[in-house]
């Protein structure tokens, strides 16, 4: 039997959902704000990538929130509110990444596909889908 070192996600947060305490930490993650659906290209066309850029934006927001929280938790390891937020964002990020990668292909080399899709999408420095 492998010991459970409390890295599981079973226990519920005793704090309110992140929307409530979000502001206190200065986070403005789009996934919680139900933000606008403008594709940002200034055209009136139906943008196929609306969902995609929206999803990437949310992935970026959640990733940054986790990076920032981790740095905070390094020096405040007993802050239960921050711990709770970290847990919630990690869960959301994992779900969102799974969903995104199933549709648009891998975000990292650790996501397997039936064909090698790592070469297909533009690189982040190419300014394509952002």
């Amino acid at each position: 039997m492998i010991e459970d070192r409390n890295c599981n996600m079973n226990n519920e947060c005793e704090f309110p959902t992140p929307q409530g305490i979000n502001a206190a930490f200065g986070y403005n993650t789009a996934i919680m704000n139900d933000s606008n659906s403008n594709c940002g290209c200034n055209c009136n066309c139906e943008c196929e990538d609306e969902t995609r850029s929206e999803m990437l934006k949310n992935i970026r927001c959640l990733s940054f929130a986790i990076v920032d929280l981790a740095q905070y938790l390094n020096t405040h390891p007993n802050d239960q509110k921050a711990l709770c937020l970290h847990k919630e964002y990690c869960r959301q990020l994992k779900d969102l990444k799974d969903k995104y990668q199933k549709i648009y292909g891998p975000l990292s080399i650790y996501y397997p596909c039936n064909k090698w899709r790592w070469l297909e999408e533009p690189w982040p420095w190419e300014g394509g889908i952002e």
Partner: protein
Amino acid sequence: MWTYNKVLQYPINIKCPNAKLAKFIISQYGGPDGELAASLRYLSQRFAMPDQKAKATLNDIGTEELAHLEMVGTIVHQLTQGLSPEEIKAAGLGAYYTDHGVDVYPQSAAGMPFTAAYIAAKGDPIANLQEDLAAEQKARATYEKLIDLCCDDPDVLDPLRFLRQREIVHFQRFGEALRGVQDKLAEKRFFMNDTNMANMMSNNCNGCNNNCNCNN
């Protein structure tokens, strides 16, 4: 962007500290053919590569080199752990100890601090990939010299052999990427001289990468 995984790419557990070896091995941390130079070289060159395979190759090998940087740093750290200043001085690391204690500082075996002059980004994909091929061979040669110098400690030899093998694999991959770039550059180019086609292309939306038919 990058994320960190709390695991070494290859395990390192050195039981006998040996500052003499650390003095040599640190060259693969911050020396001319070291892992820091390798990583920065590839990650800097990847931006302007003309094809996807070359971009992916430089991106992913440049990333692995960061894992190797951590491995070499770990070797140097474990080789200098728990030594007295006298032992460090006797190993020829007195000058290093003066400036850096037992921190891991990016420098060559001869004490030259790391410099970006170790890497090149020539603005030419063929020149860059040829440089990368040479860099892998130089790193392979350096690891072989280190293996010769460290022949008495299997705990050090084992990860050095792994790192040497990776240089050979990377050399192979860069060779393949170079051939791909050469083929790409040798392709015949077609130039459109069709006004309808030109109009169609100018009507593409610039702001988003969708093939929408708006007039932006």
